């Protein structure tokens, strides 16, 4: 996965010619493009894949950058003129993004081997050569786009919701929650379903060869964080036993190998291993309750 197919391609052309190829169209009229042409350039090495079952391959692109650029902004710029470092015009690179401020979770990918949101990966913090690959563990749709349906399937498996009677107002005042508990809970509700913790988790199974709605593999840290959150909620607590039973089944909590990768890579600094620890205690208590039938 780390070998660069593009590495054995012909040497780069000079930066000047690559920049010249980028934007000679005066119709764009963008001062940004002009400025882009005058600053440093980087090389993107992108692992591409035309379709889910196609073989991956690598392409290199040289692109001029602007101050403040991030991986999403250069991928966006590249779409307008996708010419490889070898001067070949190719299809634009498919990738996902939306908010560009690290809250929608769409743009997660592997950047120089690390899973992270591409929008907050600033070029000034990266090298002159940047390696981009799709987020591992998830099936590739095309290029850097993956299908994260498994992440949401895990939220179903763990019943990560409160059971409301309905959407209407029942005029019941909000329950009191201490500031201390709020602060602990709020950490988990910052999850943006990006899948980065799953990509980094050694126990979260690779999608290859598994059914799309994978129902037995490890549910992964993201869903466990939500179980922790909902089990603490004054109403969510009522279905605590159901959620705990879900994570006491195959592919549940005990599949965690305690590698602690999840907590290291989470861009929102969610204390996922703390959640897993708390759930460990909760499942132990639940097992005792189950044994005595209470």
């Amino acid at each position: 996965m780390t070998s660069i197919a593009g590495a054995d391609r012909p040497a780069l052309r000079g930066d000047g010619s690559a920049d010249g190829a980028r934007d000679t169209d005066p119709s764009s009229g963008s001062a940004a493009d002009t400025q882009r042409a005058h600053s440093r350039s980087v090389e993107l090495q992108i692992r591409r894949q035309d379709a889910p079952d196609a073989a991956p391959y690598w392409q290199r692109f040289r692109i001029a950058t602007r101050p403040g650029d991030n991986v999403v902004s250069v991928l966006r710029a590249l779409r307008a003129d996708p010419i490889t470092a070898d001067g070949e015009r190719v299809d634009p690179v498919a990738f996902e993004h939306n908010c560009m401020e690290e809250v929608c979770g769409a743009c997660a990918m592997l950047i120089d081997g690390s899973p992270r949101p591409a929008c907050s990966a600033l070029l000034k913090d990266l090298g002159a050569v940047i390696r981009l690959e799709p987020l591992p563990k998830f099936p590739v749709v095309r290029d850097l786009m993956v299908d994260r349906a498994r992440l949401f399937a895990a939220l179903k498996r763990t019943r990560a919701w409160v059971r409301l009677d309905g959407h209407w107002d029942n005029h019941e005042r909000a329950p009191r929650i201490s500031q201390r508990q709020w602060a602990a809970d709020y950490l988990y509700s910052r999850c943006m379903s990006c899948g980065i913790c799953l990509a980094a988790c050694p126990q979260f199974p690779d999608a290859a060869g598994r059914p799309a709605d994978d129902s037995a593999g490890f549910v992964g840290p993201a869903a466990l964080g939500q179980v922790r959150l909902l089990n603490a909620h004054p109403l969510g607590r009522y279905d605590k036993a159901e959620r705990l039973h879900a994570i006491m089944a195959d592919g549940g909590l005990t599949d965690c190998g305690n590698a602690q990768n999840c907590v290291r890579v989470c861009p929102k600094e969610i204390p996922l291993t703390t959640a897993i620890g708390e759930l460990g205690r909760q499942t132990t208590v639940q097992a005792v309750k189950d044994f005595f039938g209470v």
Partner: protein
Amino acid sequence: MSGRQVIVVGGGLGGLWATLVIAGGGHRVMLFSLFEMMRSHSVCAQGGINAVLDMQGQHDSVEQHILDTLKGGGWLANQPPVKSMCESAPGLIRTFERMGVTFSRTPEGLLDQRLFGGVKKKRTCFAGASTGQQLMHGVDQQVRRLEAEGRVDKHEWWELLSLVKDADGVCRGIVAMDLRSLEVRAFRADAVVLATGGLGQLYTPQTTCSTNSTGAAASRAYQQGARFANAELFQFHPTAMIGEDKTRLMSEAARGEGGRVWVPKDPTDRREPNRIPEAERWHFLEEWYPAYGNTVPRDIASRAIWKICRELGHGVGGGDRVYLDLTHLDRAFVETRLGAILSIYRKFAGTDPLGAPMEIFPAAHYAMGGLWVDFEHDPATGGVKPDSPRNHATSLPGLYACGECDYAYHGANRLGANSLLSASYSGRVAGEAVLSHLAGIERGAEALADAPFAAEVARQQSINDELMANRGGENPYRLHAALGALMTSRVGVVRDNAELDAALAEIAELEQRAAHMDLTESTPWANQTLAYARQVQDMIRLARVMTASARARDECRGAHYKPAFELPLPASKAASSATAGGNADPAWEAYMARWQANNERWLKTTVAEHTPDGPRIDFEPVDLSVLAPDQPRDYR
């Protein structure tokens, strides 16, 4: 219940609320979204959601919320829907709370509330500074539960291309494209709800909006006959980060919690901001608007910053930027209540807002205008009639709209933290209206002839085929950049008829060019350029509606500011009880007479209708049955 089929397009706050209500009413919902629901732009809302709970001992009232919203919106909103929305707000908060939303708490464990713009009371519930994301978690989880029960069928990675109408012109389904296989397919339904969000991408890249907030879906509905209202009323948020790829939002909550906006008194001062003593800082909002200070409504704050930078040449370093300063506030307090925006600023600007002031400038943010929607006035309450099938119905029978893609609640300027409220409330009301609409349907869409569906699929497929085959030489990405530059420079914070005429000519030219695009790829799988090219075409058409509407309104109202038609306020401040005829000050008497004459002429909803020759602009009266518009907007 028989259980009919409904289509909801859009998985943000409005669409998910509508889905909850309709599926909860026993009907099957097909929920369409461009991506997984939690990617929707609603997650970007930061500061909070307004609801009168009066938790801070300030004698807040629902009446005051209604007044603030109507006046803040330049009196342009129809009043019964605003009344009902404000009355429903506390119940919505309680419902979100039951869903598990992590609202911030007071030391007593109660819901905390903070100050926002254009108001004097702490009325804004919040969950740190990521309130939109938190509310989305709540409804997304509820919809997932319905999905697990087989009551909601999600179609993620599908894009609405058009509506399907039967022989009577009733909307009976949609044609959508699978963004992976590019399959174009018709889906039948007994009602369609659009909850497709805003259109900030018309101003790319100088916008706080996500890249999918293109307005393309609303544009498509408009082109098929749905009327579009108040298109010219578009909000520029005063405090967006400076950025070339995107101008990221720094919540109004920053000022609500005590943040101050300033520039160096000496415009040539090049010292680091922390080295400039207090006496040498110009807090221009506090000086110009002593009553509201830094929390004036957004249109006013944006114009003030514009004036500082563009007219007075007083921006920081002579540029388009002013300081938004939190450094005088308690660090732990700010970290707890604004952590999410601090993190965004740190990550993207590389400096800590607790160590040095942030640099900000206005950017395109929110569409007050949108698809025209109806409501049924309830004489018994003065609000809207609950469960009326007319509520949130567009001008196309069978088609409903809610959330930012409608025009209903914000008049000429939206107050901060009223958008999460209107998105949630309108989604719920639209859902309830659909339930009533369905009760009146005799023949379900499944029994309809196939012809109109097949014809619409063929029409949409041919548009795709043509785009894929076209080698016209125009690049969709560059066309979009040109549109954004044009709208930002000519249809922005300050407007002028000559500029708007020039903009209309340029938009016409862009529309011509957009007919000759070269996608540069013809891949039949997950071809993102094809979907994008179609969005660009529809954004250009929507830009024309917006610009033509702006050209038609010759006055200043809320976010729509044409200096040539400005009625300057008298130098003295009006007495707080100032009403028509209630002023002794002759300057105010004269002003009030001119203000009311202007209202006679312009206090009207702009309504655009699609014709082959371009938008036909008309006006309709505003329902003013709740509060007579007798207070001009004076926030000094």
